């Protein structure tokens, strides 16, 4: 009957706009972006900022820090209040240093923003187990104008392995530890040395990764960090549609009534030295 009624209504009154703005949808000013990556042994830090609205004017806007919030993190029955850092507005830390992040614990972030309870929950994953490297030292020839075609680096691969029976997410980041950049291939100029020196993987659900010797641009010591990450962290790396044809998308947030991420990870570290042959 309802349908027949609809049809009758349709015939009697040509359609009026039926597009209502759904209740409960937050306007852009009411949206808070949470950035927090908890790690065992590190003091928890929460960064709160606003979304930069897209307006017709072309001036670049900087996200505003969101200050003066009453932010708390609870674990079990304990509740810790965070305070805003005076030198970095919008960043909140636990002043008493009693809140220590521990593996396996579940932490909940909570605060109120524009009358909405913003909540984020995360459980700290386990530390990577049996993280091993095939070589802790490789030797590569320095490539100069005089090296000739024979001077190409060999295709040596550094194998990294760890346990991952549950197909959890892992992320590898490689940091160059030297202060001065000692270039392997001097033939080509490297524009952004920092970007070339440090690299990382996409989130991995496997238990191995190979670093090719060609991926190293500089001689020196590298830190290899394997982080056991949660799915919400992995989702930040998804390829997102940037076209209205496919439908614009944004990463699914694990923050209720907010954007961004409240997550945790657990890392293990190895080192490798890249030396001149």
């Amino acid at each position: 009957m309802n349908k027949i009624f609809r049809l009758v209504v349709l015939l009697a009154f040509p359609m009026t706009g039926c597009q209502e703005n759904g209740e409960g949808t937050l306007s852009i000013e009411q949206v808070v972006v949470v950035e927090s990556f908890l790690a065992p042994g590190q003091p928890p830090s929460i960064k709160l900022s606003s979304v930069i609205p897209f307006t017709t004017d072309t001036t670049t806007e900087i996200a505003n820090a969101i200050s003066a919030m009453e932010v708390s993190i609870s674990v079990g029955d304990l509740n810790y209040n965070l305070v805003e850092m005076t030198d970095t507005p919008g960043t909140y830390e636990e002043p008493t240093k009693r809140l220590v992040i521990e593996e396996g614990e579940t932490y909940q972030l909570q605060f109120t923003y524009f009358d909405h309870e913003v909540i984020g929950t995360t459980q700290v994953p386990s530390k990577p187990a049996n993280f091993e490297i095939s070589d802790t030292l490789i030797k590569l020839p320095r490539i100069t104008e005089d090296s000739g075609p024979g001077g190409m680096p060999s295709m040596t691969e550094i194998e990294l392995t760890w346990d991952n029976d549950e197909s959890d997410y892992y992320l590898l980041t490689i940091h160059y530890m030297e202060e001065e950049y000692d270039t392997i291939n001097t033939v080509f100029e490297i524009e952004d040395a920092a970007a070339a020196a440090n690299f990382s993987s996409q989130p991995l659900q496997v238990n191995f990764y190979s670093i090719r010797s060609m991926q190293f641009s500089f001689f020196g010591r590298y830190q290899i960090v394997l982080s056991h990450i949660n799915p919400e962290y992995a989702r930040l790396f998804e390829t997102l549609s940037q076209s209205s044809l496919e439908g614009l998308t944004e990463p699914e947030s694990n923050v209720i009534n907010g954007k961004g991420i409240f997550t945790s990870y657990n890392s293990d570290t190895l080192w490798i030295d890249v030396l001149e042959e």
Partner: protein
Amino acid sequence: MIHKSLVPYLILMLLKFSVLAQEAEKLIINKDYYAMTLRSVLIDLSKSYNLQVDYNQEDVKGYAVSSGHFEMPLGRFMETILTNTDLKFKIVEDQIQIRNNSGELSLNDKVYVPQADFTLTGLVRDQETGEILPFAQIIVVGTTNGTTSNVDGYFTLFHVPSDTSQLLVGYVGYEKKTLSLTPRLVNNKLVIDLVKGSLQLADVNIVGERKDLMKVSEKISETALTPREIAVLPSLGEKDIFRTFQLLPGISGSNEGSAGLYVRGGTPDQNLILYDGFTVYHVDHLFGMFSTFNSNAVIDVKLFKGGFESRYGGRLSSVMDIVGKDGNENNFNLGADLSFLSFNAFTEFPVGKNITVLFAFRRSFQSALYNKFFENYNSETTTTQFGGNNGNRPFGRRMETAEPVSYFYDINSKISYNPSKKDIISWSIFNGKDVLDNSRENNRSFGGMAMNNSINDLTDWGNLGSSLKWSRKWNQKFYTNTLISYSNYFSIRDRTSENTRINEDDEYETMKQGTYENNDLQDFAFKTDNQWEINLTHRVEFGLQANYFNIKYNYQRDDTITIQNRDDQASLFAFYLQDNWTPVTRLCIIPGVRVSYYTGTQKPYFEPRLSASYALTERWKLKAAWGEYDQFAQRVIREDIQSGSKDFWMLANDEDVSVSSAEHYIVGFSYETSSYLFDVEAYYKQLNGLTEYTLRYIPQFGSVDYNEFYYTGDGYAQGIEFLVQKKFGNLSGWMGYTLGEVIYNFPVYGDNSFAASHDVTHEFKMVGIYKLKKWTFSMTWIFATGKPYTKPLGGYQIELPDETVQEYIMVGQKNGSRYPNYHRLDMAVSRNMKFGDMATGAISFSLFNVYNRKNVWYKEFEMVEGQLIETDVNLLGITPNITLSFSLK
């Protein structure tokens, strides 16, 4: 005792189509029998004109025929050739009796028993080619008693008042014919020949005769088109059936990127497309610029916009029933069209007396116009490659330019065989394919290594379908149509790069990266449709259908990760029963039911349907329909910027992809005069179990449970359509307006309903055709509200623990914004030409998007350092085209 030589020499030719429908006396003899013996002339006369000639061989001996008889009516012809002989003759119908002057002419005028209130059967066909005309309308003049010919051109008309009644026979695209019945006609096999309202014929305006491009049926939501007539409309290089339907109200006309039909808020996959009885699953050529159907191979197209009858099933929204041409029964014919885009040729011919053949072929070539479409819809001839995460950007981008190879072709062929007067066997085959190859190869020598890097960028899609049909007219009242068919839709997309290298130790190393997609659908079907004309009040139709589907979908990445690998099989069995019931004159009610059993869910499905029309007066008609509809094979669409529409078919299983269902409610009325039609229909369509596929959460990494890709939701579509058509005169055409909305509700997008991506609020269309002697001018104008899209509201950044910063867009309400309104004017002019008596042709010039409106196809957004860069990607701008057509007949 009769001497053998005196036995009258009778030739009885039982040809399927004799000349009975016309008076033999009026037959024009146009063969030249110069310097032949009288006997051989008579023999040839009986053969060539299907006449029965009765004469004594002795009587005609020694006579010859001189000249001077060319192009005479039969009576005068006989008088002429028998001058100066002692022979006399008599013609009665198709019989000629010749005796010497002393003999007796015994041929009597045939006396028929007068008939009243009798049942008449007959066949409607094309006068020129002898092709049967399905779905022609036959009505007894001065009554509302009428019927329609079936798919094989046969009709049964009950309660014809007398054998001298007049019939009015109409067929879209043909001149209407008023046929006065005679006792002789009704006692013989009635064949009604209609004359094409051909654009290639000189304009002859005969009162009462009419040729329509588009015809709105008296039945609810039904429209027919004449494929031959659409050539006068502006086109982009190929006259296109689907593009023409998009000019009707209720069918979205602003989807340039898809030839498929969005009917009354339905999506193209909810539209059942039947070609000679088999289902066609994908209709796009060249990113949807054209449909895959060659209009030179099509004789009839009917579209049911909703509320369709029980004999059709398996789709939610609409039905398009396309009947392929049978081929010319009388003569060899050859035709060709050449445009900036493609070459199109067909031939049709009879083989012997019982077989006709049609073959049509079309292929694009890479002209400037083709490249324009290609570039427009394949926005970049570049590839984006994703590298490691180095620094702030999560991926690097490397552009390579390649010369793409791209083309489409299609082939239609049909062979029809009439083994007897009651049977027709026809075999139809259709094959069409699009190929887009953007692949390239690099060979490099690098230090001590040889590297071979080949990038595959291959997109292939197409159809192969075939049906074998046997139709039999068991008797005047019972007709059966049985077919077996096969339909295959395939779509392959290979976007992988293969790196092979020989290292210093002479070892080969090969790696494959990228994605590979393959969708392969097979549909084997058996169908039988029966029509039983019980009496004037009841025509019962019933039938069975069995389908076996096998749909494969494989999606792989980096030759190690299989994201999806589906290989689904299911069968569908359906039975339907419907009655065309006319309880009182002017009222026609069609109750029906379709019962299906689908093995994919192991459930029965019950679809009751009802439609009715009532003629208030000669001019006013009321109509209504209601029905339930189910769909088992679903198309999941993934629009793709680089390669046009990307879709794949899935079988419903009620686990991740559900069987979708719809319920239609339609009411309407029409007012029709001899020149004008005013038609209004309102519809409401409830849609349940819709499936959407999303790219939203497909990670670039790791394994994925494909069940997560499918979202299920509900929705409804409602609207009201207005059509005003000027059917006749030098100026003809129509105007249509649709007010509509399509609202979806998918829980995954939140509690709120949202406008579907193809929702259009207002749509106005105007089609005008003006004929001036040999010239035809036409224009079409479309206005449509912009379609909805999801707008970005703002952006934000997240700094990761490794100090890299990622930027994200915050999206607004799902489909909460709209593109600018769409409008477009197309114009065309064509001139008909005659090349003597042998051939005809036409040249037409067409201008698409005359005022170069920049209609937005989609928007691209990019966030760079907190700033949103918004780019409009537009649809096709002004585009000219010239088409040359040529045909022997």
